[in-house]
């Protein structure tokens, strides 16, 4: 076995996927190759340190099923559903929908212009003040 094959077996062994026969072949190579033996010692040492340093497990907390189902229900009835309704309207009858939107905008402008404050603002923007400057 060459060192490249040994490296492959090291990868499999560190991942816990090497068979007993493959581990035996790796051991045989490590007994003859100092460089691979050093690499294996370093990496298996790092693996052991990692295993020892794992964080404490989280306590098994609350049941999330209620929160999950509540979020699903909100999505079914909330803004996403409303956007879906609008998207469906625009997609099926685009001209009628565009006309409805335009009419709404025109009505809004008329109502705004009819308001007293809006009329004063329109006069100021139209050029000049009441004293003639």
């Amino acid at each position, binding site marked *: 076995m060459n060192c490249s094959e040994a490296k492959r077996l090291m990868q499999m062994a560190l*991942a816990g*996927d090497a068979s007993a026969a493959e581990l035996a072949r790796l051991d045989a190579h490590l007994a003859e190759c100092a460089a691979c033996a050093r690499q294996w010692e370093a*990496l298996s040492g790092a693996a052991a340190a*990692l295993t020892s*340093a794992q964080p*404490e497990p989280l306590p098994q907390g609350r049941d999330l*099923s209620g*929160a*999950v189902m509540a*979020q699903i229900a909100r999505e079914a009835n909330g803004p996403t559903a409303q956007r879906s309704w609008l998207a469906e309207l625009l997609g099926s009858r685009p001209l009628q929908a565009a006309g409805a939107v335009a009419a709404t905008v025109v009505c809004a402008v008329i109502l705004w212009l009819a308001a007293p404050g809006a009329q004063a603002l329109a006069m100021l923007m139209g050029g000049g003040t009441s004293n003639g400057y």
Partner: protein
Amino acid sequence: MRPDSRSEHATNHDLLQRVRGGDSAAFAELVRRHQAAVLSLVAPFVHSPEDAEDAVQEAFVEAWRQLDRFRGEASFRTWVGRIAIYRAMTLSKKPRPLMENAPGWDGEGPQLPDAAEALAVREAVLALPEDFRLPVVLRFWRDMSGREIAELLGWEQSTVWTRIYRGLEQVRQNLESEERS
């Protein structure tokens, strides 16, 4: 939502069939059945228990949305676990202090030597690029095999092997440079 006695003894396959037929109580039972395992999977990748719960909750909601795409090649738990892990990785990118729960660490006074070493190892792991951190954490903190990690993450098994190997090399280098500094 209270458990449904009809659901408690049903198989995952039966529950999924009922969910597809419009039975939301069956989906709630799937959540109850798998939430602990999925929470355990994501916990090492987030900064707080709250983020872990958020990742799990959002994963189950996403699974509901995408249920039509679930074909059963992997188990339901594996599929939701995959969604949750990637959601957890996104949450982990938010700037937060590390969750320091090393044995012997109480936040006050000098740290015990073992606790300081454990913290250094964990920081070296958390500093890994995502593609290395995922398989390394699942292998050494969740005791999953390379084959199981490949199935969970949807990777080739050889990719898992390579990334665990390179991740360990990088952890070792990080620890050695930390010792020298």
